[in-house]
Structures are given as C-alpha cells and as structure tokens.
C-alpha cells in the first residue's frame, strides 16, 4: 500500500513538472506582443523603442525563456505566482479571494450529482428496460448533450423573466454573508451537478446491473434478506467503486466546466477570472491558472486512486 502511494505520488510530481514546462512554453509561443495586450494597439505604437525594451525588461520578458521559466518556478515555490498584467493583486491573492467560491460550487455540485444520480440509477437498475428506466436513461443522455453554460443562461433568463430575480453579482464569502453566498453558488452548482449526475447515473446503473448478477448477491437473496437490504448492504457498496473513481475524475472536469458556466451566471469565481484572463490575453494569469487546474486535476486523480486502493482489497493486494 505505501509503495503504491509513493509510486503514484512520484509519478504525479513528474507529471506536474511536465505540465509546468508544457504550460509555460505553449503560452509563450502566443502570437502577438504582450505589450500590445497591455497598452492596446494604439498605445503600443506611441511607445518608443527604448520604452518597449524597458517595459519588457521590467516584466521580465526580455530574459531567455529558460531564465523566465526558472523565475516562474521560483515564484510558484514562494507562493506569489506572479502578477496580472492589468490588476494590482498578485495571482496568489486572486486565487485565495476567488478560489473558495469555485471550490464551493465544485463540492456542492458533486454532492448534488450523488443525491440525484444514485437513486435514479437504483430505480433504473432494479427494473431494466421499464418505462422509468427508459425515461431516466433518456434524461441522462439529454443532460450530457446540453452545454452547461447554455443551461445556465436559460436559468438566468428564466428567473429574470418570470421572477425578476438575479443573483447578487458582488462576491460574498461563506462566513460573512452566507445567504448571498448561497444565492451566488447555487446556480452554477445545480447546472454542473446535474451534468455530472447524468454520468453518475449511467455508470452506477451499469455497474449495479453487473453486480446484481453476481453469485454473492444471489446468496444474500437466497438467505431470505429482503430486497432493500440486499441492494443497500450487499450490491451497492461494490457497485459504487467505479462510481467513486468516476466522481473524482468528474470533479476535475467540473473545475474546467465551471469556466463557461461561471461566465454564463456572472459568478465572481476562479472560472470567471480564467475567462477574463483569456479574453485579455493575460499570459501570466493564464499560465498560473492553467497550471493550478492541472495540479488540482493530477492530485484529484491520485486521491481517487489511493481511495479506491484503500476501499478495494482486490486492488490493494495486487
């Protein structure tokens, strides 16, 4: 078990280093001068050669790429993550201010996906090919096909249209102002949660169907246990193992999916910051946020693998 965790962590660390290199160099081949992004095309033409060189040096962009990369790594190690082109706060400050909102959205959406997805899957799997099963399967395919941000736009539009309601736009922290915070978070969380619930329901249904056919479940039935006990105590725990894996992977995808969804709702979270950075071509913020997302994604995958190994002796003793 320890060997397994250590090996996973070592590979994860290698991946993170690789990710940082790829992120850095991919974003540095961006077409266009960063100074044009900073001053606008007009302001750029008014700058003299010397000014341009001065600004480039000040931003640390005139060093060789390797040196710039090492500076960035040092920044990450120090935890300051560099500065935005346009705003005074450092990227680290921005993450600590906006990150909690996105994290809340992600966690609520995961909880919601289980609350919705698992019961639907149980109902489906107990009566495969019944009317209820077909409806829930169609709904789950529908929710896979609906783009989350469009669903979000519809919710915003409908609540404005029919109730004249709009979620507060300014950020509100969970502790200082829980009611505003909930209003901000709930929309994106529902959209992302239902999207995940579709995956969860599909996976849990097929995995339950497989488990229900196994001998030990038949034994439990033959012992005379009632159906509910067999499902909840015998079949479900084993059927949920692949669902846990999927849910962990989906959590990583939710962080990415929240970028367009937060834009649709106007949520002042990390996803919206990513959108702003993309539209402003703000390379520093982009590279740090992409790196952060990738690191979180890698760590989540490791956490999922370790959890599964801990829960499932078949993997642990391999």
């Amino acid at each position: 078990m320890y060997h397994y965790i250590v090996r996973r962590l070592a590979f994860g660390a290698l991946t993170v280093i690789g990710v940082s290199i790829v992120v850095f160099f991919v974003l540095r081949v961006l077409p266009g001068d960063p100074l044009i992004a900073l001053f606008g095309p007009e302001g750029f033409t008014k700058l003299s050669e010397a000014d341009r060189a001065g600004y480039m040096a000040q931003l640390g962009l005139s060093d060789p790429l390797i040196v710039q990369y090492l500076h960035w790594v040092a920044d990450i190690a120090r935890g300051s993550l560099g500065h935005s082109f346009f705003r005074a706060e450092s990227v680290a400050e921005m993450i600590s201010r906006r990150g909690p909102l996105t994290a809340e959205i992600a966690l609520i959406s995961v909880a919601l996906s289980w609350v919705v997805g698992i019961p639907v899957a149980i109902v489906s799997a107990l009566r495969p090919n019944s009317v209820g099963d077909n409806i829930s399967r169609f709904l789950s395919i529908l929710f896979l096909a609906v783009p989350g941000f469009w669903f979000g736009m519809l919710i915003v539009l409908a609540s404005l249209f029919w109730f004249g309601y709009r979620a507060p736009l300014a950020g509100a922290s969970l502790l200082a102002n829980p009611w505003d915070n909930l209003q901000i978070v709930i929309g994106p969380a529902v959209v992302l949660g239902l999207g995940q619930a579709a995956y969860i329901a599909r996976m849990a249904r097929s995995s339950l169907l497989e488990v229900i056919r196994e001998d030990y479940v038949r034994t439990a039935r033959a012992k005379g246990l009632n159906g509910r006990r067999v499902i909840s105590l015998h079949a479900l725990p084993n059927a949920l193992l692949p669902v846990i894996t999927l849910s962990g992977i989906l959590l990583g995808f939710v962080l990415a999916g929240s970028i367009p969804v937060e834009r649709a709702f106007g949520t002042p979270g990390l996803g919206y910051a990513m959108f702003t950075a993309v539209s402003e071509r703000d390379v520093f913020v982009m590279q740090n946020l992409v790196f952060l997302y990738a690191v979180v994604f890698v760590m989540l995958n490791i956490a999922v693998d370790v959890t599964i190994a801990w829960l499932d002796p078949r993997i642990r003793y391999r």
Partner: protein
Amino acid sequence: MTAIEPETVYPIEQTSAAPETSLGRRAGRGLLRFVRRAPLSAFWGCIAAAILVMALTAPLIAPYEPLKSDFRHMTKPPAAPHYFGTDQIGRDTLSRVIYGSRASLTVAIGAVLFGTTLGSLWGLASGYFGGRFDIVSQRIIEFLQSFPDLILAMAIAMALGAGIGTVIVAIAITRIPFGGRVIRAVVLSLKEMSYVEAARGLGASHLRMMARHILPQCIAPYLILATTHLGVAIIIEASLGFLGVGIPAPTPTWVNMLADSLNAGLVPPWWLVLFPGCAITLTVLAFSLLGDGIRDMVDPRLRSAV
C-alpha cells in the same frame, strides 16, 4: 465433415470477386437490420443526417443571408417574416442557425477525423508492438489526460490564434488519448487470437498483420468512438467559442450567437438564447444516441469500454 462445399473453403476469393456490389449490398442489409433492431437510434440517425443535409444545403434553404442586416427589424421577437426573430443588428436568426450548423459540423468532423483517427492508429501501433514503444506511448497519453480537455483545448487554441483551423487542431489533440486507449485495449486482446498467430506463423510482415488482420477488427470500435466524440467535439467547440477562443465573430456559429446575445444588453433576448442552444443540444443528442445505437448493435460488450 467431408460435406464442406467448395465455396466455403475459399471465402476470400468469393468476396473479392465482386467487391463493390457485395459491399454495397452488405451495407444496405446492415442498415436495414439497424433500423429494425434499434428504431430509436435509427430515428436519431435520421436527425443527424438531416442536420448534415442542412449544413450542406444551407444557401438553398436559408430564407435570408446570414450576415445581411435588416435595419427595419432589429432585435425583433419571432414573427411573420423572421420566424426565429432577429438579432440586435437585424440579422435573421433562423438563417444564422441554419448556417451555424456548417461551422459546428466542420469543426466536429475535422477534429474527429484528425484526432480520433490519429489516436486510434497510435493505439493500434502501440498495442501491436508493445514493449518500450508502448510504455512511452502510454506515458504520453497519460500526460495528455492530466489536463481537463477544455483547459488543454483552450491553451492550444490561445497559443495558435483564433480561426477554424486552430479550433479543429485544439479539439483534435484532446481526442487523441481516447482513440489511443480504446483501440490499444482492443488490439491487446486481438493479438492473443489464434488467427493472428496463424498469420504470423505464415510469415506475414508487421504492416500486413496490422493492415489485413488487426485493423478490420478495430473499425467497429473506431466508428462508435468517432460518432460519440462528434458530440463531445461540438460541446468543446461551443465552450471555446463562449470563452472567446473559438471561431472569430463574423462567421455565423451557434455559440457566437449565444455569446453575442450576452452583449446585447442587460437582459439577452430569449430567442437569441433559445434557438442556437437547442440546435447545439439536438445535434449532440443525435450523434450520441446514434453512437450508442451502433455500439449496442455491433458489440454490447463495448458498453463499458467506449
């Protein structure tokens, strides 16, 4: 066992005698079987085909030019001459929705043809050769999968600059790992089959083994993967466009219409939000249900793999 008729002994000669007609007839029979056994999937297949036809014949069926402004009808809700309404500079929404199918389908088909195919061929080679090549390939694929696909596509699209070609490349790269993994798994199980061993025993070259004996078995999983990923590619294209790194503005695409509607004012007009979004959803739904149907018919065991 002496009653084997001579025709069945040489099946290869038999099929190569009239390849076109027998292939056409076989495809026709397969299609008929598909309609009979999975009518619902066949229905969604028809919708997918209708969307494809709509994209191809857009200039013939669109009532207006997608880029032409009608300044007497600006931001008008759906009514007689403009059945889906008009946007804030008077462009007809119905025509733009019809033309929008071109961009989405071009990107999706391009990305899948390029990405899924490349990934599948890579998976074929890495599964077939195994060894060090396989290990390195697996690590590269795992690395590609250490980014969520939207983030990866976004970074690549930003790095390459806006345009339909870059969007295709960006999405294609995110499709490579899926092709690689699925086809590699198929190849690994095929390699153990005795007919493959027999071919090797007969002295077939690597290229011949892969092309004649392994590749044909990979076509079904490839088709399923490609159909399903058409839908995924459309969703990623839409998300990229919504974040402003998709196909640039004057081109009528569904997602550009959605993004434009956000800039139309405080409250986006509902018809500018509803219709393009429905178009995206319907297209993705059609492709994924068609993919599911093909999978269930060709090989139910692939249910969990793809």
